[in-house]
């Protein structure tokens, strides 16, 4: 199954501005896992978005939601 990217209006930040001072190389990836009755929602944030996307794609979800810049 190919994962589709869906562009959404808003996703919450998990990385705060001050986090960048303690990780100058930008390797931080942060997750929040929410378990529902029939599904698991995985919210992620990363200083380098591709790190996060690579991890999420490994889980082969039907849809990955992405917030656009601008």
């Amino acid at each position, binding site marked *: 199954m190919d994962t589709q990217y869906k*562009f959404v209006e808003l996703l919450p*930040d998990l990385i705060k*501005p001050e986090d960048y001072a303690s990780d*100058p*190389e*930008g390797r931080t990836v942060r997750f929040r896992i929410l378990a529902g009755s029939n599904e698991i929602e995985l919210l992620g944030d990363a200083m*380098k978005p591709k790190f996060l996307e690579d991890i999420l794609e490994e889980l082969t979800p039907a849809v990955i939601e992405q917030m*656009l810049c*601008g």
Partner: protein
Amino acid sequence: MEPDVPATEQPHWRPAQFFSREGNGVRCTLCPHLCNLRDGETGICGARRRIGDIIETASYSATVIHLDSIEKKPFYHYRPGRPVLTVGAPGCSMACRYCQNYRLSQAGKPTGLPWRAAPLEAEDLATRARIHNAAVGFSYSEASLASELTIDVARLGKAHGIDVVWKTNGFLTQHAVETVAPYLSAVNIDIKAADENRHRRLTGAALAPILETFRYLASSRVWVEVSTPMIPDVNADAESVRRIANWIAEISVDIPWHLVRFNPDFGMMQARPTLPSELDAAVEIAKDAGLNYVYVERSMGGRDTTCPNCHAPVVQRDIWRTTSNVLINGGCPACGTAIAGKW
């Protein structure tokens, strides 16, 4: 919010403006690439093609239509709190190596990323904006590719007070800028680097035409703000920041400048993010250049407006919206100094 009709993977073409016939050739004149196209060939942007002796545009399309806050574009001095019905469609006249929206901006190009969008009519867009009492915005990919749609929507929306705003790379020919500017209410323009070579390496496009667009729009009735992604080893050094700040200050010290944190993506995965200390240093350089309104996107305390005279806080914002606006008729409530903007 979804487009009215389902998205397809085939562009929806219609006749465009902004081209010239030269002998057997047809040249697109929307952007300074000035693509001279063979019959059937698509331009660098992926959204304009030649068919016969005309150019067609695929930008009467929407992949996304989002109802955003105007602060998210970002506009900080233009109608705070106004919702913006924001349209994003495939294509871009640049190929920025860091683009986080590349799945949209580079779609339909030789990258192999699929085109996916629904056809969009100006009437439908104007109607939706009226329902939401919103401005119409073009963003996420390159707004200026929707120049023809911008003109149509602005004409339709004028009677209803629907303003049209762009988040743009500013890479337009002088003719195109002069043609579309009367239909625009506000523009946030990116100045992405401080010299030609770095700008070309970063974006695949020249810098000089962008500065011309900036200067033209800033001298017009269009409200202009500027954004710059602060990229280490590209433009986050003191000399580059000072140079861009001086370009803005030469036009007006009252033009807001948004310094945007860089998060490595797409073709720049080996780079590092902007450090808080680099953003802080850039703010100081910008203020030393005389700029009155310098903002740091998504940072602690970098989003508020203070009076340039008495330094009283006059507009406060959280990440995506205005939370407090104490201006009185556009002026500071403490000392009366006019705060530049369209409030």
